[in-house]
């Protein structure tokens, strides 16, 4: 099995890697075909998500004894399979699907993320302390950028947008550039290890 996995990794990765450096028609065609297969498999993996959620909640239903405890798994399963069946057989333009997307999924997505505003205000107040030089630099730059991002900032100090732009472009830009370059070297090394089968942590579990 391990040998098969290594072979599959090599077969999948090598044509695409070669086609990045040389224009060989047979290799390029194979690479493009494998990319299309990758997209198809990504599509299958979305149904794996459906299956996984079904099994997890079905097991939760089996384990729970009291009526009050089964509501949540039932809600998940009804919403999941109701929407899947309507979407697959009738499409997204079906009124029921459209209603759920517009009035359940979109608002809940947005509401969940909007809670982060409360948490960031509370966390900034509680944790953002000037304990040392590093924290002081972080605080000063953060405050300058926050002020410059709003129209009031320019009213307080007319040069604030220029200073903030310089911090973002030059200071932040050079640090991010270093991180991107270092990250690229690490990504190339890790990806090569994955293709040849040395790195297999993604297969655990």
């Amino acid at each position, binding site marked *: 099995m391990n040998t098969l996995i290594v072979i599959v990794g090599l077969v999948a990765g090598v044509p*695409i890697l070669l086609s990045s450096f040389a224009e060989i028609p047979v290799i*390029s065609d194979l690479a*493009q075909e494998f*990319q*299309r297969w*990758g*997209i198809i498999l*990504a*599509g299958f*993996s*979305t149904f794996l998500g459906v299956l996984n959620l079904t099994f997890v909640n079905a097991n939760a239903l089996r384990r729970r004894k009291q009526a009050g405890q089964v509501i949540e798994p039932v809600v998940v399963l009804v919403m999941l399979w109701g929407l899947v069946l309507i979407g697959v057989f009738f499409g*997204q333009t079906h009124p029921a699907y459209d209603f759920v*997307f517009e009035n359940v*999924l*979109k608002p809940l*997505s*947005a509401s*969940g*993320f*909007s809670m982060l*505003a*409360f948490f*960031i*205000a*509370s966390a*900034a*107040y*509680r944790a*953002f*302390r*000037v304990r040392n030089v590093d924290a002081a630099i972080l*605080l000063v730059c953060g*405050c300058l950028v*926050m*002020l410059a*991002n*709003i*129209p*009031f900032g*320019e009213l307080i100090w007319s040069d604030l*947008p220029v200073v903030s*732009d310089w911090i*973002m*472009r030059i200071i*932040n*830009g050079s640090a*991010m*550039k270093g991180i*991107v370059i270092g990250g690229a070297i690490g990504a190339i090394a890790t990806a090569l290890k994955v293709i040849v089968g040395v790195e297999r942590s993604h297969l655990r579990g």
Partner: protein
Amino acid sequence: MSFFERLQSIPRITIYVLVIIVLSIPLIFPISLPLQVAPMTQAVYDAIEALEPGSIFMLSTDWEASTEAESGPQTEAIVRHVLGRDLKLIIVGLWPQGNSATQQIVERIASEMGKTYGVDWVNLGYKPGGEVVLASLAANLRELYSSDVKGTPLDQLEICRGLTSAKDVDLVCSVSWGDPGHITWVKMVQTQVGVPVVAAVTAVSLPECAPYLQSGQLLGVVGGLGGAAQYEKLVGYAGKATAGMGAQSFGHILVLTLVVLGNIGYLATRKSKEG
């Protein structure tokens, strides 16, 4: 508990209520604030202005409904600009919810502007896979997209005639909330085939755009709700983003005030402990 210790221990619920009140007041009682357009937002506008009518503009919906507050107004402002310039709008997407939400936004704007689906704009839909999708799109778009989101074959759509790969696209705009998103477009399309890319990103992603802006891999970036408000100003209308800038300002001032209060309390108590 001393005054300075109490300054560091405002209850969480009090902060949450303050946040809601401080953000709601300028929404209910709007205030008009001057808005300066940032150079990177202007660069996106100029890139679209430079296109001839009939040029192909690809909009990639790389966001989820979680960031609709930022990505929605950005999408609306850019689409109004694009359709107003009579560019051909091709929508693709790396994330599912954003593509569906963008379809609704563009349907509304296209109907206002008298634009026809299949002639002036088309939605090719969401494809899972991130980098793999863009690698395929760069090489051979027709193999990846055989039909649009409604199932109509591309050959039957007037807007798709002559569109075979990313090289036929004149400008790409990725409205993005993370990865895969604008950076994926830069890596897989801009660097590989040379198609110019601009981005409209959430404010969180703005710092990571700096190296790509400096290297020219990104021509310009619309950043966050502020960037959307600036773009609305450039296009010539006041939408949700502009309406939100007052609340944004008050929100920032609240967070700054809380940080300053917390640090005053911390430094004062540290001093008294050392003393």
